Each structure stands twice: as C-alpha cells, then as structure tokens.
C-alpha cells in the first residue's frame, strides 16, 4: 500500500478544493447559519456536488456511480472540511451508499443506489440512543408481528437526520443491551407512518435529528442484510464513515491552522509580528507535526479500506482518535492565538472549534476509539 494519492484521487481532491474555495467558502456556511436554514445545507449546492459525481463515488458503475472508493470520497471530505461546507455527503454518499452497496439485496441496490447517485434521495444512519456512541447498547426493538417488522424506540444524534428521505436503522431483534449479537439493520422511508423526526440544533449547525419510531410497520424486505447480522454490518459501515469523517476533521484542522498561521504573520503586538514570538512558533511547529501524523493515519486508513486491508477496524479507530485529538489541539490553540477576536462570533475561527467538539462525538470519541484500538491490539 502506498501512502500517496493516485492520479484519480488527486483529481478528485483538486476538483473539491476548487469547489470549496470558490463555491462554498466559509461565508456560505455562515449565511446558512444566519438565515436559520431549516435543513442546514443548500439544495442548489448539493445539486452541483451531485453533478460533480460525488454522491456516486462509493456506488458501482452499473448503478450510476463511479466506484472510486473510500479514498476518493475521503479526499473530497477533507477539502470541503476546510471551508465547513454543509452537505449531506457523509450521511448519504458514505454511510447510505456503503450500507446499501455492501449489505443490500440486488433489489435494494437497484432501488436506492441510482437514486443516491442521481441526487434524488438523501439518507441517514440512525444508530445512537445514548449520549455516548455505543451501537451494542441499542434498545430500539424490532419484532416480527405476522408478516411485518414492527419497530419501536428512539434514536438520537442522527447526522443529516432531519433532511433524509431514507433511513437506515439499527434495531435489536434479540439479545440484550450491551450485546452485538441480535442487532439487525432496516431500511425505510423517513415519511413512513409512525416515524417522527425531530430536528435538533447542535453547536456546529450541522443537520442532526432525534427520531422516534412508534409502532412503525415494515415489510420483510425492509431488512438490510441478514437478520441478526447488523452488529457486524454496522461496524463496517461505521468504520467507513469514521474514516471519511476523520478526513473531514483533518481538513478542519488544516484550515484552522492555516488561518492561524496567516494571523501570526500579520498581527502586530508590542510593535512586532506575533509570529516572531518563539513560544508561539514552537506551539505552531507542534501543531504542524500533529497534523502530519493525522494525515498519515487518515491516508493509511482510507487507502487500506480500498485495498481490503484486514486491519480496517484498528485503522479506523486510529484515524478517528488522532484526527479528533489533533482537531481538539488545533481548534483550541487557534482561538487562543487569535486573542480577543478569536472568541467573537464575527470571526470564523470559532466555527472550527464548535465543529471540532461535535465531530469528536460522532461515531465515537477518542476514548471510545482508544479502548477499541487497545482491545484489538491486545494491550
């Protein structure tokens, strides 16, 4: 495995960079926020992303995608992460596409994948039920009543949950809280009777929802993957999501760091540029090193995933944990180095801090992934 981008990936990255810089600079995010956009992302922008082929990157060509792999979508996530570009890319093009393509029946693939690729639908993955990510703690129940599955429960913190047309839900068909066995995935339309989607406003102004399932009846074919195989499936889907999210977080770090470096080079105090202060120089150098380490971890995870590296779980946990810790460091240092204006809403740097903490929680924080990495490594 080479830890460099191939030509295809480099082209995707360049194209995403160009799009983010020109079409969706941070002001795009700011204006959606200021307008209290109910969806938190712009339909026109999403349409353009779809036209660039981004929604189909994890989708095979026969279903209208380009099959460029996780590395392909991750480099895009990294670039749009730099400008905090709001879009349903993570939930739809990564989680939804990967889940359906990997675990769906031929029929399900034919039904959903072309619609994802064409931008006709967006999706969301409903996993968490507690304040901390823990798929095995799922309590949402799916019971077979006659010919139908009946789902009851409440999911929370569902990324892009309030705008999604189609939901993929992790539910318990047997076993008890804490067990991975007995979990099953279902796919359904968000407007299904009994589904109540409650949009929640989190600190980073991404789209999130809590979702209540009140006696939601589903046909048998709503099963995504085999019954009781959801524990393993969700792990695979989540790991792809974690890697793509890590790439986005890396982009967040890179952008915040660059803004801060620029500030150090232009802001004067006591008659000199503050970038001449050695204490700040060394802290900047340390951030640089951490970002370099993060780049390597993300790169290895995304390239490894596409080469079916059998170390996917550990690599995903490494990437998510390190990306989270680096972004924590960089977002804090960036605000501090900006001084007073760093804590004003008028200035963009604070957006990265808010995004940092919310992204940290999505699909497990550093704690979760350190524990997982340690277990997988026999520490």
């Amino acid at each position, binding site marked *: 495995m080479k830890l460099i981008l191939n030509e295809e990936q480099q082209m995707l990255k360049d194209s995403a960079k160009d799009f983010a810089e020109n079409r969706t600079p941070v002001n795009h995010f700011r204006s959606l926020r200021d307008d209290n956009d109910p969806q938190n992302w712009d339909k026109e922008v999403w349409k353009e992303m779809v036209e660039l082929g981004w929604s189909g990157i994890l989708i095979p060509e026969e279903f209208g995608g380009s099959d460029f792999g996780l590395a392909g979508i991750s480099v895009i996530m990294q670039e749009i992460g730099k400008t905090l570009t709001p879009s349903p890319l993570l939930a739809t093009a990564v989680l939804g596409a990967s889940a359906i393509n990997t675990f769906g029946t031929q029929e399900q693939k034919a039904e959903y994948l072309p619609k994802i690729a064409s931008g006709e639908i967006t999706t969301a993955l409903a996993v968490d039920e507690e304040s901390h990510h823990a798929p095995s703690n799922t309590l949402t129940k799916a019971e077979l009543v006659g010919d139908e599955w009946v789902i009851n429960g409440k999911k929370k913190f569902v990324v892009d949950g309030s705008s999604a047309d189609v939901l993929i839900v992790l539910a318990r068909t047997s076993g008890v809280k804490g067990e991975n066995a007995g979990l099953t995935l279902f796919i359904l339309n968000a407007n299904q009777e009994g589904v109540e989607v409650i*949009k929640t406003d989190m600190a980073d102004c991404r789209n999130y929802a809590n979702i209540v399932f009140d006696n939601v009846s589903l046909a048998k074919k709503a099963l995504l993957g085999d019954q009781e195989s959801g524990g393993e499936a969700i792990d695979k889907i989540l790991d792809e999501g974690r890697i793509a999210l890590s790439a986005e977080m890396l982009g967040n770090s890179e952008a915040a760091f660059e803004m801060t470096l620029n500030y150090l080079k232009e802001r004067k105090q006591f008659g000199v540029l503050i970038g001449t202060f050695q204490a700040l120089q060394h802290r900047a150098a340390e951030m640089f090193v951490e970002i370099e380490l993060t780049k390597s971890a993300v790169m290895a995870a995304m390239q490894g995933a596409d080469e079916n590296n059998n170390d996917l779980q550990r690599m995903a946990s490494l990437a998510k944990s390190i990306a989270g810790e680096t972004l924590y460091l960089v977002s804090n240092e960036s605000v501090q180095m900006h001084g007073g204006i760093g804590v004003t809403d008028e200035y963009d740097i604070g957006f990265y801090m808010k995004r940092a903490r919310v992204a940290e929680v999505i699909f497990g924080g550093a704690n979760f992934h350190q524990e997982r990495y340690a277990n997988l490594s026999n520490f």
Partner: protein
Amino acid sequence: MEHLESFRAEVKEWLEENCPPSMRTGAKVDASSATDEVWGGRNAVYKNPESKLWLDRMGAKGWTMPTVAKEYGGGGLSKEETKILNEELWSIGAKQALLSFGIWMLAPALLEYASEEQKRLHIPRIIKGEIRWCQGYSEPGSGSDLASLSTKAEDMGDHYLVNGQKVWTSYADQADWIFALVRTGPQEPKHTGISFLLIDMATEGVSTKPITLISGKSPFCETFFDNVKVPKENLVGEVNAGWTIAKALLQHERNFISNFGLAGAASGGGNDVVTLAKKHFGEEDGKIANGIFRSDVTTHKMKEHAFGLTLKRAGDEGGKASAVASMFKYYGTEHNKKRHEMMIAAMGSNGVAWDGDEYDQEEKDLTKAWLRTKGNSIEGGTSEVQLNVISKRVLGLPS
C-alpha cells in the same frame, strides 16, 4: 472583643429588621446567567422590588463597601467588623445587594488616586448603586499591548474632546458612566501619554454596540466616542499619568478572574465532571464506568485540589505579589477551560446541544459556558502575557 460582640449583635438585629425575606434565599450569584442580579444605576429595572429595598438599605449604611470611610458614604468599619458583617450576611443567606464595577475596580482606584472632590462626588454614588460604571480600556487592535491605545482626548482649554473606540466594555449598553484610558500625549512614549478619564455616557457622541461571542450574546460592547466633550475636572490624577492607575486596576481584574478556575468546582452540584461522567458513562462499583475517562478525571481533579490549596496557601501567606496573581490568572483560567472541556466530553452529544426542546436547558447552558471559558485565558491579560510576567518578574529571566 466586647465591642465586637456588641457589634455582631447590632448587625444581627439590623439584618433581622432590614433584610427582606426574598433576599435571604442563600442563592449564589452566578455572574454568567443570573437574571435578578442587582447592578444599580440610572436605568436599573428591579424585577423584585425587595431587591431595590435591600440595595437602598445597604447603600444607606454604606455596607456595600463596608471598609470605606463614612465621609465617602462607606460603612466606616474596621477589618474585624467587616468580617463579622460578612459572616452575619452569610449566616442568613443574604443576597449580594449590589454587583458593581464601581465597587470592584473604580472606587479603590479613586480612593488612591483621585482628588478629594472627585472622591466625595463619585464614591457615594457607587456605594448607593446610583451610578453604574463600565471600564473603557481595550481598543480594536490593542490586544495584549494595552498601552498602544489610540482613543484621543484633546485639550480644548475648558474641556477634553474625545474621539475613538473602545472594545470589550462590559455592560457598556447599560452603564451610566465609563472610566476610560485616553491618549492625551500623542508625542509622548506610549506609556506616558495616557490619562485616566471619567465620562458620562449620556454625553452627546457616546454610543455602544453589543458584541456577539462564539458562546452567543455577551455583556461586552463596542463603545464609540465621536467628538465627545468631557469636562476637565473628570480627569483623575495627573495628565499623562493614567498608566499607573490602569496598572493598579488591571492587577485587581487579574485577581478577580483567577478565581474562575475554582468557582464552579467549589459550587458542586450537577455541573461537576464526576457527576456528569457517572450520569453519562454509567457507574460500575460506584466508579465512572469508562476507565480512560476516569483516569483523566482523576488527574484533573487532583490538579484542582492542589490549585485550591495553592490559593489557600497564598491567602495564609498574606502574599499579594503581582507575580502570584499572574500565576493564578494563568492557571485558574487554563484549568477552567480544561474543566469545561471535560464536562462537555463527559456528556457526549448532550454536551454539544445548542437549542430546541430535545436537550435540557442546563445542558444547552453548559455548551455555551464551555465556549465562554475560551475567553478567560485572553481577557484581563492572555495566558502568554502571564507566562511572560512570571518568567521575567518572578524567575528573573532576561529580556
């Protein structure tokens, strides 16, 4: 001793008669969110009429600044008497009658640097809560280099003409007067061309605009001076000698902020990181169920314990050296930031909630409180400035 005992009896009796029932709730004042705080001033609105009554009575006794001499409207109490007064106020759970930058910052400076006339004019009004003050120091671009300020006050013979802009003026939009640093000696070296000026904010040409922070609304404002005429008698101390007063005041502010680190820790309750961690991670055998987080909590709480002991030790030593204040400002604010980081981390997704009904108000408040702490290590002298001060003034490292 006999005198003090009879004084205690007097205080008890007076409080019994004069402290209204609703002012004895024992509630702590939480500066960030309390809505029924009393700050006084011309435009004060008293949701609870008893709080006005309580202020008036305490103000009349001069007990909002008990140690200040009676001639300036103070309580005229000795240190020992003040201690007794505070103990008695505490024992009935009395609310603070008046929150005031006038009391905390301006009055002490006036007592030291102002003319007799100025003291007699301004201090009683501060003590009675008649005039609400704000502080005009920082300017856009001045940052840590406060002395680089450029708001100018030109000597026009019978008055100063003030032009410029201040930022980070807390509650400027609700204050009656502002004490401001202005440049009176544009040709002087930067520290020696500064004067300390008192300005009535009702004067024509003064305007304010609130600042929104990453945490949301804030008491901070921008304050603009557009050809504002200020009478010459409003100058405190000598012309071009304002920096000395400013430094004394800054020291005061630094001491004030350094207590942040422990404020919440001492108050306990639902916002303690241990309680939050047990709630959100669960408990096993009475322990926080997440081992890695428990380990982080432990080292954090041990540092907090040692820091609390250090504050106590500094008190016991009676030391008031400015360098020690720098240490407390530095460590207290950094610790407070870390404490909030740990609290929101303990809460998972509930720690990053912003709005709506799906999360508790307490949770949403904590998200904002966390963001607000980011300013602690910037305002009142950045952490970097404090480290500079320690390394040079305490450790004697060369420049």
